[in-house]
């Protein structure tokens, strides 16, 4: 079976985000980029699936040359092949999905993993969009994954619990924390990944339906009042919550 995993290259979650001079994108200076944290669960699940069912794994990333770093990480963890869909311009989620769907089709992958959300634009929709474009079944926010023959059973996280979801291949699964424990790349894996070729392709031009008009920092919250230094401040705190904030 051919298994694909789509990965994105994003600012580290600890990064300070500043707005670029164009006013519609971030200023990348001083920002370190990493594999999107949720994509590590997706990579791990792709590797586990290959170990169980055999086949071949491919990591696909859309973006500029910098994304190769994330693809190398996937290779170092054990993914067989890597494809960079080279386009560093702006794309909305659907436009990203269209490019990914084309490549997944070209690869003939029947089982596809995504992270449940990219921690840059936080859209949490690319997996579902891509599945629809491919006509594949899709389970999002999976915290467990079982494949038996053609049948897939996942648990997905919802408010106050989990849903057990059933479907069949071909399918897209988006990974949530809890799905697995991503492995560390071995030294051997890292060395081997350095030598592997990353295949570069140019995707079809973007057709964006979502235009970014402005990007801005949120109004910073004023630091509030320190009411006291021990339990004696509690009655005043509760009074403020009742009378000033009116929240209890």
């Amino acid at each position, binding site marked *: 079976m051919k298994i694909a995993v789509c990965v994105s290259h994003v600012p580290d979650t600890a990064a300070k985000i500043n707005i670029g001079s164009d006013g519609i994108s971030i200023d990348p200076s001083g920002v370190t980029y990493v594999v999107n*944290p949720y994509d590590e669960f997706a990579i791990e699940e792709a590797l586990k699936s290959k170990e169980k069912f055999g086949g071949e794994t491919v990591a696909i990333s859309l973006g500029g040359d910098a994304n190769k770093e994330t693809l190398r990480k996937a290779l170092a963890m054990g993914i067989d092949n890597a494809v960079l869909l080279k386009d560093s311009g702006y794309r909305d989620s*659907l436009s990203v999905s269209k490019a990914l769907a084309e490549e997944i089709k070209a690869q003939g992958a029947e089982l596809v993993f995504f992270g449940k959300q990219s921690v840059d634009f*936080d859209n949490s929709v690319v997996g579902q969009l891509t599945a629809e474009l491919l006509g594949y079944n899709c389970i999002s926010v999976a915290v467990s994954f079982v494949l038996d023959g053609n049948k897939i059973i996942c648990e997905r996280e919802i408010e106050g619990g989990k849903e057990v979801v059933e479907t069949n291949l071909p399918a897209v699964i988006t990974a949530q924390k809890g799905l697995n424990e991503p492995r560390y790349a071995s030294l051997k894996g890292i060395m081997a990944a350095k030598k592997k070729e990353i295949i570069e392709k140019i995707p079809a031009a973007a057709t964006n339906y*979502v235009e970014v008009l402005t990007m801005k920092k949120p109004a910073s919250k004023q630091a509030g009042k320190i009411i006291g230094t021990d339990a004696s401040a509690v009655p005043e705190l509760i009074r403020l919550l009742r009378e000033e904030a009116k929240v209890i």
Partner: protein
Amino acid sequence: MANKILVFIEQRNGLIKKPSFEAAKVAADLAVKLSVTAEAVTVGNEIEGLEKVGSYGVTKVTHFKNSDLTNYSPSAYAELITKFVNENGFDILFFGTTSMGKDLAPRVSAKLDTGLAIDCIALNTNSSDIIATRPIFAGKALVDVKITSPKKVFALRPNVFNPGVPSDAKADLTVVNVDTPNLNVRVTEIKRAEGKLDVAEADIIVSGGRGMKGPEHFHLVEELSQVLGAATGASRAVVDAGWRPHGEQVGQTGKTVSPTLYVALGISGAIQHLAGMRSSKYIVAVNKDKDAPIFQIADYGIVGDLFEVAPAMIEEIKKIKS
């Protein structure tokens, strides 16, 4: 511009979820502004009080009904809604950014080939466009976006849009029985975390961090939650330590919340934690380190030992509630 607005009403267990009322109100208000109509659509089996969406200004609700649709089925829900949109010429769709909305809205959007703005925290209209504001980088920045496709899909962040005071109006209900829903992807079972309020749905949240010193002290967080009618949350440090389940984690790699009141006990306020809760209306922090970053965004702080302060808070609230 547009001529018809549709809002998706989410039900679980036959009960309408609150974010749907918020979305209904936004849809109805927009309809008034644009001098168009707003309708609602829902999918499920038995659903209680559907006419109630009328009290938020939506005049008509269509219910696609089948006993196999009690639980969510992404394939069936997406197909039914898409068909309904195409047959009736809706151009603007609203969802709530709930776990169902986040799953469903993109499917519908892909089928309709539209732009999608998810997790919107504000909507503004000018003469020709609807401008949606949404947080990115877990709230470290905001973007204003405009959807340029003829049809547009918006999902609204829960607990941000005020549904206002409901009127007595009732919506006209049309029930459409569905013969053979597409159950290619279907929920077969729901496992509820017993009796627990989820942080993503709570109006008040009390969260504990590493300052709680161990899982055995979380009864303080739970008791304070209980007297406040709040959900219990946690920082990643305590989830990673195995003290609390991941479902409680607030932050960039946990849940993004915007409750009316957020109480942080023994949480330092790392950037990834703040990212998930900074949009709370009121924030209370209890931390013994006066330089803890959480105090920079807290409305009210006590610089002190939570093992003294939290029990006193529980007592004081019990007193006023009795």
